[in-house]
């Protein structure tokens, strides 16, 4: 009898130890929430964002000494938290600001995440980050460019990407250079959707151009996810602007390119504001009829064997697609967040917030071509920068401006198909 009791006790103890081990290991995971459009019209972007974050998790949680100075790559897990692993809980914003907000709330209150990232569409980043602010949870955004996101006096919102105003200045300088080289750039038309992203980027470009003595001669707004864009293309065809700037998500971007080809309309110069025109499926679907379109980017693959090229390879293995600017910026944002948690040495939101404020990353610690990462009081990265790329062959974007970063010279006029 006695022996049986002893055995039972030993057994119980063994079971509790066995149960306790995973519990202890669980203590060593850091849970981060990620809100992205995994369904709905922008699902392509969301799915690629997920691949980017998963690639980053692989780099952080496993040892990757080949990645040089990239923070968190050398050893497995977060050294500052005793090698704790990073776990990401993904949530689908379904392309709706209300859903994005609810998902952020769920991640904070039910999944108990220590920080958030996301949410691709500026309009959804707006609502999701408002919840994080309310609960005092750090929200690091790597890709949303609407100006007002960092103008709300938020204490918990940090943005790594360059914003609309930075890119507007790049466009303006680029056009000045092209004008000096003999291109006509006087009449500029803007085509943009009516989302937070489309309207805010359009108004920022308008005001930056005005400050630089240029003006926008035509402004075409349309409702997102259009069924038809023939009239818009015909408005352009009638006014014949020298430069057309397209601010559109992938669905509309593809429809515009198809319609321009059908109506035989080629502007002398076309500049795309990233997003839709950078989507890998955009190039596959209509790259061949969009040859010569300019685009903005902060991502460049770099030489073979360089950390950015290795990461691009890892991403391609996982997703089957080339790493594009948007996904790369999302990945960079996530690295910044994890680096801050590592330096904070804690999952306490206030300590992570303090570490984010103290972020000072150098160019060789980044995967993006930024001049560094350092946040101002509003949470905006002041060292973010970008360059102009061009889809010369209809298959791959190459860097064309400024000259110091250019792989090839800009080709003009816009070739189309």
């Amino acid at each position, binding site marked *: 009898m006695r022996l049986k009791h002893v055995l039972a006790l030993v057994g119980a103890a063994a079971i509790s130890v066995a149960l306790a081990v995973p519990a202890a290991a669980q203590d060593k995971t850091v849970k981060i929430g990620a809100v992205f459009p995994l369904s709905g019209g922008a699902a392509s972007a969301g799915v690629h964002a997920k691949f980017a974050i998963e690639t980053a998790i692989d780099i952080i949680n496993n040892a990757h000494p080949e990645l040089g100075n990239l923070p968190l790559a050398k050893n497995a897990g977060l050294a500052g938290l005793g090698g704790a692993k990073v776990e990401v809980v993904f949530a689908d914003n379904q392309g709706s600001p209300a859903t994005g907000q609810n998902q952020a709330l769920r991640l904070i209150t039910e999944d108990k995440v220590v920080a958030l990232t996301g949410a691709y569409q500026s309009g959804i980043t707006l609502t999701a980050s408002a919840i994080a602010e309310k609960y005092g949870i750090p929200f690091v955004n790597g890709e949303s460019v609407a100006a007002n996101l960092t103008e709300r006096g938020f204490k918990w919102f940090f943005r790594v990407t360059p914003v609309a105003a930075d890119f507007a200045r790049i466009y303006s300088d680029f056009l000045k250079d092209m004008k000096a080289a003999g291109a006509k750039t006087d009449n500029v038309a803007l085509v943009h959707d009516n989302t937070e992203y489309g309207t805010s980027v359009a108004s920022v470009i308008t005001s930056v151009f005005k400050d630089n003595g240029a003006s926008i001669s035509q402004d075409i707004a349309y409702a997102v996810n259009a*069924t038809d864009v023939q*009239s818009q293309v015909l408005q352009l065809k*009638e006014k014949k602007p020298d430069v057309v700037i397209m601010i559109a998500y992938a669905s509309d971007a593809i429809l515009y390119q198809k319609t321009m080809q059908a109506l035989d309309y080629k502007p002398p110069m076309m500049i795309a504001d990233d997003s839709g025109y950078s989507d890998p499926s955009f190039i596959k679907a*209509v790259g061949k009829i969009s040859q010569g379109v300019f685009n903005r980017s902060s991502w460049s693959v770099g030489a073979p064997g360089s950390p950015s090229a290795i990461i691009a390879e890892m991403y391609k293995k996982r997703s089957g697609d080339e790493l594009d600017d948007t996904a790369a910026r999302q990945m960079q944002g996530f690295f910044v967040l994890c680096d801050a948690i590592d330096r904070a040495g804690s999952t306490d939101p206030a300590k992570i917030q303090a570490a984010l404020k103290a972020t000072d990353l150098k160019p060789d610690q980044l995967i993006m071509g930024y001049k560094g990462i350092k946040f101002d009081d509003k949470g905006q990265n002041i060292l973010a920068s970008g360059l102009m790329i061009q889809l010369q062959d209809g298959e791959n974007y190459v860097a064309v401006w400024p000259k110091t970063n250019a792989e090839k010279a800009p080709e003009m006029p816009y070739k189309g198909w």
Partner: protein
Amino acid sequence: MSSILVQVIVGGLLLGAVYALFSSGLTLIWGMMNIVNFAHGDFVMLGMYVAYVVWALFGAGPAIGVPVAALLLATLGIIVYFALIRSIMKGPMLAQILGTFGLALLLRYSAFWWFGANYLSLPENIVGGTFDVFGIRIQASRLLAGVVALVVTGGLHILLTRTTLGSKMLAVAEDSSAAQLMGIRPDSMQAIAWAIAAGVTGIAGALIATFFYVVPTVGETLGIVAFVTVSLGGFGSVPGALVAGLLIGVIESLSAYWIGAVYKDIVVYSLFLCFLWFRPQGLMGKS
């Protein structure tokens, strides 16, 4: 009239024909069988993917893609009728709405799972590119869709008004138990109606895929126009849907050109509501 304006109107007509084409299947189901099929847009989406797969596997254009899509979708229509519609028709209205809505989500997320979220596209010249008529650009793929819209509308109209099968279908729609007393099997008539409606929707999808992008959520983008077209045309009126489609296409194009694309839906839907105020049965519906 400037040539650009003519181009706007021609574009609107071609667009309207496409609206009519993908609405005709819905007219049949919604107008005659009194079931709101919320999965209609996703049937269009499946037709588009069939056309894409036929092209990707065999390099074939709509000459193969369209009949294959019609056959596959018609089969799906019969399966959907027997597996889902037959039982939810006995339930309250809400069950019908939620049932077909559930079907829509099932189809959409199956497409996500199978094809992924990437945008796909057929080559631009798959139906012979674009040609010029007196300086007006006409896209062969849209013209083909427009011609097929006319043929399908005519065919369905003749079927419903001039054939015994059509009369039987209408009889079932009007009074199912009375039709049964006359020796008509409501079940087979309903199943045939679903097969035709889904088959026609498959044709529409396969043709739209020749000039539109293909993505699992495309049904959401296109679906709403189908509902508006059917109610403007008049429930159950196939020619009504054609006229309504053309009207909506031209009004959309003109208002986008004159007032601005961002306002075109406001123009279309306010006119639509005003019209229904005076004529709730639609253009050609019976009151």
